[in-house]
């Protein structure tokens, strides 16, 4: 995926082996789903070397979840790219963070966060025994700079935008849509899997995306347009209080 992964644990039980287990999992996911790797399963699928019957179980699951996400988002989430190949990275990142955080939870770890490329799952409290304080990146700045702070204790937060690796999100209903009205779309949800896939879809909807999130219970959104104006869902402010 070419994205940095950060794991932070604030439980006494944390051991180096735990971190290794989580990072091993991400390496496994990367090896399977990276469209940048010549020997990944997804690359083989795109070269038509593997038929659907021979997909691995995780690949089958990811394709199934993608199909479900496409339905939920009225077609705005689609892993089929304009050039006809499959790129499930809009779903795999959130999915793998979600699974990684369950590796930790299953070991009894309560206070941690897992981040991959700006998408984050938090659990419990930080080292000051407070809610985790997560900043939303200024999309106009190359450097790390925060334009909004939110306080989370058991949520996923994901931000979509086309300012990472060039355009990698498309409007499946209009391939010519440059999606430049909105520069950043952040979604907070009950877990990172949901937040990530809905952030991707909401971003693809352009400025209508905020209404899509507004209409979903348990999800809040913060959308920044190219003029630097942010629009938030009605319940968003509950996360801006410590």
């Amino acid at each position: 995926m070419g994205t940095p992964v950060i794991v932070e644990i604030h439980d006494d039980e944390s051991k180096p082996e735990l971190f290794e287990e989580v990072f091993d999992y991400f390496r496994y996911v990367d090896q399977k789903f990276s469209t940048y790797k010549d020997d990944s399963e997804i690359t083989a699928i795109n070269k038509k070397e593997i038929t659907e019957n021979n997909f691995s179980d995780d690949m089958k699951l990811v394709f199934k979840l993608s199909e479900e996400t496409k339905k939920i988002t009225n077609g705005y989430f689609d892993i089929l790219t304009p050039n006809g190949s499959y790129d499930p990275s809009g779903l795999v990142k959130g999915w793998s963070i979600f699974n990684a955080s369950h590796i930790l939870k299953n070991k009894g770890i309560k206070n941690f966060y897992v981040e991959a490329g700006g998408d984050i799952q938090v659990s419990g409290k930080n080292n000051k025994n407070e809610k985790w304080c997560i900043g939303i990146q200024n999309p106009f700045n190359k450097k790390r700079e925060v334009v909004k702070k939110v306080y989370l204790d058991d949520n996923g937060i994901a931000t979509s935008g086309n300012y990472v690796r060039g355009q990698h999100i498309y409007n499946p209903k209009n391939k010519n849509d440059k999606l430049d009205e909105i520069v950043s779309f952040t979604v907070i949800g009950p877990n990172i899997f949901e937040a990530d896939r809905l952030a991707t879809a909401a971003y693809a909807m352009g400025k209508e995306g905020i209404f899509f999130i507004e209409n979903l219970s348990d999800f809040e959104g913060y959308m920044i347009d190219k003029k630097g104006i942010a629009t938030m869902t009605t319940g968003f402010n509950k996360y801006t209080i410590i």
Partner: protein
Amino acid sequence: MKKVILSSFLIFGFGAYILHIRILGTTAPVVLTPEPNKPKVALSLPEYNLITTEPKPSNTTTQNTTTTQTNPVIINPKPVIVPPPVINTGKYKNGTYTGDSIDASYGYVQVKVIVSGGKIADVQFLSYPDSRSTSVRINSRAMPYLISEAISTQDSNVDAVSGASFTSAAFNESLSSALSQART
């Protein structure tokens, strides 16, 4: 006479309504513009353990979730015609080029490109929109009921940052103008 007309109108109106429901039924398109007291739609969450997940129908909502999942949504994303990006096309002359200062409404975005060996060696921000802490309720026609604010730089005392790295439409625009000067 007036009364009769009125009641026949009402009956007709009701009949037409029934007909409307019959014909359109649940295939009526869903409009995304929120109404003030409309209950939110609960999304069908997958099972906690994703390995065994199956989409399950939601029972925590007063609205038919299936309707929102399968029906067309009235959104008309406007195609935006933007000149193709000039990045990675052709060779560039070595040197330092400053892009136009692009108005991002509450501030300006301007970048400087350093070209070395015919390639982009670095892109620096000379200016970008920052700190203005006005919080306003704007544009009620386009964004009913939702609060907007101009983004402003906060202190970076956070545990983690959600987002990605750089760029924006203004960034691209300023970069394009810088690179057009660098074209050989």
